[in-house]
C-alpha cells in the first residue's frame, strides 16, 4: 500500500501541517485582542471599542499600539489610559459639535512592536473614512515608521509617548509628552547644576533613536555647561545584548560622578548590577523609560537607591486633574499601584483629541489638525501644556524623580 510516492506525499502533508500549526500559533499570539471590555471585533484585525454611553453617532479614532512584542507593558498601559479617557468622556456627555453630541470610540490595531506592522496599521486607519485621527504609536521607532503615511494621507496623529525630536517635523504629527532634546537637556542641567556632578559617563542603546537622541543631547549640553563626559559608550540592543561588563569596567575605572543610562527599564537592572559589580560607586541617572514600578520590584539589592530619572508627572505634585485620574485608576483597575507615565500620557492624548475636535467644531481631519495647533491651555494629567508654538510639541514641564526606599519620590520640577 505504501509506495514511495505515498511517503513523499505524507511528508509534504506533514510539512504543510507544521506550517499551519506555526501560522496558527503566530496568529494566535500576534492577533489583535484589545481589552476584555471590547465588543466582538468586526474583523480579526481591528479590535473595536465598546460604544459606551448613549449616543446616536460615534466619532472613531484609530489606536496604533504595542500590545505584543518586545515591550508589551507599553501596549497594556496604553489601552488602560485610552479606555479610561474614552469611557469618562462618554459618561460626561461626549463631544458636542454644532449642538449635536457624539460619543467617542476607537479601533485598535496591535503593531507588535514591529515597525512594518505600525506602518500597515497607520495605512489602514488612513484608508478608513470613519477614523478621524490616530493615537499612537508610543515608541519612537514605531512612530517614525508611520510618519510618511500620516503626512501623505493627511491623517492627524498624536503620539502619547514618543519623545523623538524629528517626529513632529511632520505637520500632521503631535505629541502629548516632551522631546528627547528636552530630556537630554534637563538631565544635563540637573546633573551639572543641581547634583554638582563635574564628570559623567553615558551607556546607551545605539539601535534605538530614542536612546541615542537623549545621549547625544545630554553630551552636548553637559559639555557646554563645563562638565566632562569621560566615557560615551553604546551597545546594540537589537541583538538582545545583556553583557555590558566590558563597557562598565571602562566606566568604573574612570569613576564619573554620574552614569546616564537612557535605556529601557528591562535593561536597567542588568546594567546597574554590572556597573556596581565592576566597582562603580557614583550615581545613576535615567530617562522617562525608567518610569515603571517593575524596576523597583526587581531592584532587590537596592542598587538604584538615590538614582534620578526625568519623568512626565508625579502624584506628589499632581494637580486636581491628576489626583482624580490616579484615584479613578485605582478603582477601575483594582490596584494600589499608581499608573505609569504611559497610562497618563495616553489618557491625555485622548483629551487632547477631544479638545481639538471641540475647537474645530468638526471631525474633518484637517480641521482637527488645526484644532490641535490652536490649543492654548490644556490641563492634562501630565501637566498644563499648550501647542501655540505650532511645531506639534507641547510646551510643558518635566519632573525629576528619585528612587528612594523602594519608591519613586518627587524631587524637583523643571520648566523649559
Amino acid at each position, binding site marked *: 500500500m505504501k509506495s514511495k510516492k505515498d511517503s513523499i506525499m505524507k*511528508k509534504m502533508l*506533514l*510539512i504543510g501541517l*507544521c*506550517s499551519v*500549526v*506555526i501560522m496558527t*500559533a*503566530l496568529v*494566535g*499570539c500576534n492577533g489583535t485582542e484589545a481589552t476584555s471590555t471590547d465588543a466582538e471585533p468586526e474583523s480579526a484585525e481591528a479590535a473595536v471599542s465598546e460604544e459606551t454611553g448613549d449616543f446616536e453617532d460615534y466619532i472613531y479614532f484609530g489606536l496604533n499600539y504595542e500590545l*505584543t512584542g*518586545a515591550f*508589551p*507593558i507599553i501596549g497594556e498601559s496604553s489601552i488602560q489610559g485610552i479606555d479610561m479617557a474614552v469611557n469618562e468622556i462618554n459618561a460626561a456627555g461626549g463631544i458636542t459639535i454644532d449642538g449635536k453630541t457624539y460619543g467617542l470610540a476607537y479601533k485598535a490595531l496591535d503593531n507588535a512592536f514591529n515597525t512594518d506592522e505600525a506602518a500597515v496599521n497607520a495605512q489602514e486607519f488612513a484608508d478608513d473614512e470613519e477614523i478621524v485621527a490616530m493615537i499612537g504609536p508610543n515608541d519612537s521607532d514605531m512612530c517614525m515608521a508611520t510618519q510618511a503615511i500620516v503626512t501623505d494621507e493627511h491623517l492627524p496623529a498624536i503620539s502619547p509617548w514618543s519623545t523623538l525630536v524629528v517626529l513632529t517635523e511632520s505637520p500632521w504629527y503631535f505629541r502629548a509628552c516632551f522631546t528627547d532634546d528636552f530630556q537630554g537637556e534637563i538631565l544635563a542641567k540637573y546633573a551639572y547644576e543641581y547634583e554638582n556632578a563635574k564628570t559623567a559617563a553615558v551607556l546607551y542603546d*545605539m*539601535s534605538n533613536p530614542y536612546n541615542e537622541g537623549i545621549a547625544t543631547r545630554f553630551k552636548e549640553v553637559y559639555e557646554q555647561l563645563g562638565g566632562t563626559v569621560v566615557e560615551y*559608550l*553604546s*551597545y*546594540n540592543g537589537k*541583538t*538582545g*545584548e*545583556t*553583557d555590558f*561588563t*566590558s*563597557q562598565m*569596567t*571602562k566606566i*568604573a*575605572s574612570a569613576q564619573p560622578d554620574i552614569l546616564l543610562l537612557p535605556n529601557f527599564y*528591562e*535593561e536597567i*537592572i*542588568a546594567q546597574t*548590577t554590572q556597573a556596581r*559589580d*565592576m*566597582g562603580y560607586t557614583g550615581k545613576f541617572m535615567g530617562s522617562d523609560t525608567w518610569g515603571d514600578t*517593575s524596576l523597583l*520590584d*526587581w531592584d*532587590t*539589592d537596592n542598587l538604584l537607591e538615590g538614582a534620578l530619572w526625568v519623568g512626565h508627572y508625579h502624584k506628589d505634585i499632581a494637580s486636581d486633574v491628576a489626583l482624580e485620574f490616579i484615584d479613578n485608576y485605582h478603582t477601575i483597575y483594582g490596584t494600589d499601584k499608581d499608573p505609569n507615565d504611559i497610562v497618563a500620557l495616553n489618557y491625555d492624548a485622548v483629551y487632547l483629541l477631544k479638545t481639538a475636535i471641540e475647537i474645530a467644531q468638526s471631525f474633518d481631519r484637517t480641521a482637527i489638525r488645526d484644532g490641535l495647533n490652536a490649543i492654548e491651555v490644556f490641563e492634562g494629567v501630565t501637566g498644563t501644556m499648550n501647542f501655540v508654538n505650532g511645531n506639534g510639541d507641547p510646551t510643558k514641564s518635566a519632573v525629576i524623580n528619585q528612587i528612594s526606599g523602594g519608591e519613586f519620590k518627587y524631587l524637583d520640577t523643571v520648566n523649559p
Partner: protein
Amino acid sequence: MNTFVQQIINFLQLGSIYALCALSFTMVYGVARLVNFAHGSIFGVSMYVLFFASTYLFNVIESTWLVYVISLVISCIVTSLIALLLERVAYTPLRNAPKVAVVVSSVGAGMVIEYLILNIAGSKALRMPSLIPNIKFDLLGVSVPLYKFMIIIIAIITMVVLNIVIKKTKLGIAMRAVSQDRVAAGFMGIQTSKVVSASFVFGAIIAAVAASLYGTAYSIFAYDVGESIIWWSFIAAVLGGIGSINGAVLGGYIIGAISVLAPIILPVSSYKDIVAFAVLIIVLLVKPTGLLGKKGIEKI
C-alpha cells in the same frame, strides 16, 4: 592592572556562558547532523522552569545552594523531556526528508515552544532569584562576586565531565561512532535512534546548566530569551567547527573575547557584532569547516 584583571574575569564569565550554549547546540548537530534551531526555545524553557522552581523552593528551603541544585535538577529533567518530545514530534518523522525540511521544522518547533511560553508565563519580563549567595572576593585588588567564579567553575566542570563521558563511556563511544558514520554504526549493532535521543538529552541538560548561569549573571529575562542565545551559540559553534565539542568551547571563548575586547579597542563600542562576523567570515574563508571542524566525506 585592576582593569586588566577585571576584563579577564569578564571575558572568562562571558566566554564560559557562550561556550556552554554553543556546546549544547553542537551536541545534536554532532550526532544527528541536524541544525536544531529550536534549541533557543529549549534554553528559554529551562530559564522558566528554573525561575518557577527556585521561586517556589525559596519559600520552603533556606539554603541557597540547595535551592540551586534542586531547581537545576528539576530544570534538567523537564528540559530533557521536552527535547525528547521535540525529537519525536519534529525530527524523527522527517528522518529521511531533505535537510531543509528538517531545518524548517526545527524553526517552526522553536516558535511553537516560544509562543507556548508566552501564553503560559506571559510577556512580562521576570527577574531570576539569586541562585548563588551574594559574597564578594578579593582577587589581585579587584572585588569579584562569587557568582562570577561559580559561572566559570561550573562551566569548566560541565565541559570536563562531558569530555569524559564522550571519550570513556560506552554511550559516548556510541555517539562518536554514530557521528562518524550513522549507517556503519548501525551495522555494528549500535541502536542509532537511541544514541540520537541521547544527544538531545545531553544538549538539553547542558542548556539547563547554561541557563542557570545566564540567569545568575544577567537576571532579567522574558519569553524570547532564547532568540539571541541561539544566535550567538550558532555563530560560536560554526566558528569553532560545528559538531566539534572542543570547537564549540573554543568558539564560545572567542566570541566572549571579542565581546570584551571590542568595546575597549573600537571607537564605537557597539561595533562588536561587526567584528564577530568579520572574524567568522575570515575563518570560514580560510577554513570552511570552522577552526576545529573535520572535513566530512560525502558518499554518493
